[in-house]
């Protein structure tokens, strides 16, 4: 069972208390975007084997959105931070790099 700590209220919630929201840090394609750009934003997914950044909502708790950095091959959790953060916090990125030297980072 996946347990994530909500960065808003500090509760370590198991997945039955949370709602998954898909890949994080997607850049929304603007009104002038081409079909290809919009397709990439709407549908194409990284779906990585390894480090992944993912949106979650503390649905049965405070109701707020946050982002979890975790590994899809082991279910290890590296950390969580509020959803309005534009890029993963630097200390979290350092921690992930230490544990996963092969990780190529977010494009």
């Amino acid at each position, binding site marked *: *069972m*996946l347990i994530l700590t909500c960065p808003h209220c500090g509760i370590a919630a198991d997945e*039955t208390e949370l709602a998954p929201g898909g890949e994080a840090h997607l850049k929304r394609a603007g009104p002038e975007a081409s079909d290809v750009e919009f*397709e990439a934003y709407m*549908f*194409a997914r990284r779906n990585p084997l390894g480090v992944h950044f993912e949106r979650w909502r503390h649905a049965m708790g405070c109701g707020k959105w946050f982002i979890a950095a975790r590994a899809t091959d082991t*279910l290890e959790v590296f950390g969580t931070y509020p959803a309005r953060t534009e890029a993963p916090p630097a200390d979290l990125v350092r921690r992930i790099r230490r544990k996963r030297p092969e990780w190529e980072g977010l494009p």
Partner: protein
Amino acid sequence: MRRYSAWAILREGLRLHRGWPRVWENPETRAAYDVVIVGAGGHGLATAYYLGKNHGITDVAVLEKGWLGGGNTGRNTTIIRSNYLQDPSAAIYEKARSLYETMSRDLNMNVMFSPRGVMMLAQTEHEKRGYLRIAEANALQGVSTEFISPRRVRELVPMINIHGPRYPVLGALWQPRGGTARHDAVAWAYARACSGMGMHVIQQCEVTGIESRGGRVSAVNTSRGTIRCNRLALVVAGHSGRLAEMAGFRLPIESVALQALVSEPVKPMLDVVVMANTVHGYISQSDKGELVIGGGADGFNNYTQRGSFHHIEETVRALCETFPAIGRLRMMRQWGGIVDMTGDRSPILSKTPLAGCYVNCGWGTGGFKAIPGSGWAMAELVANDAPGPLAAPFSLSRFREGRFIDESVAAGVAH
């Protein structure tokens, strides 16, 4: 390849079964093949088989990182049906179902296809309307299904709790020629037939990279060295995202865990497949007497082949409510597979941005039933570098064009 027959069993019986040859060869890799297929699950093997059988292409290797059929093909609950809503789905799933009818004969191996009937319970008014709509659609598509009354449901499955407290049974969508088959045997039968045509089925050969020259695929790097190819088919289900990354493109696919479980064996109590999509559970009884049970998929990306316990809890709770008689059975085994989910819950059989490279994926929680039809359509695509009528609607471009084949409503949770 020696033919299997009653006579062969008799003859070998007299020789204490010492004369059976290998079911398929275990060859060394060659430096190059015309077609390389990644993934020896049902879909990859069926693709190879129809390349040979329908298109005369036999310079083919199927590369498998683990053991043959060790992916979702050997992990699924083997439900076969074709009662989908959209016309392109009905076409490819019904093609597959009809090929299952003759598969044992065609491949000369008993795949235990058992058209025992598949029943999808309607347990809310909304679901009932949905199934009535599918029954009408199926009538137009030439797929034989009907919407049956609660009384008929009870005749077919006496142990069902029709007046369930939360979700009474309001009827069911019934496909009498749906059923089950032996999953391993399907993979083995195709592997044997491919091997018999001189193709190479190579296990423990993981693809780790894809090479291209001038925008065209040229080779794959594997744990057994580099293998050149003219054409490459990626048929790796939950690992499609990984292979696409190697080939330099992204897919509209997320990989999640889906689980199943089986009970201790009991005497015959259920001779059809029952699916209860509202409460997220489905059940059938194997020839050994075990109840084969499955439910919903996890909601988050995962490659660990183990799912979350609360899904099992939900599934078992739903089934105990629907079939009170099974409440005290013990469960023997539980496992998971990594399924490849697309947004519209329909598969992808398509050319890709890399010339000469094709994908067959996105079958998600329900591709066992599609294996022969998918292989048929995929072989056509690879052989002609253009999709035939079965594959054409399932191209990658449908996402850009907003031309979805939406089966998420029709298929509910399941299979």
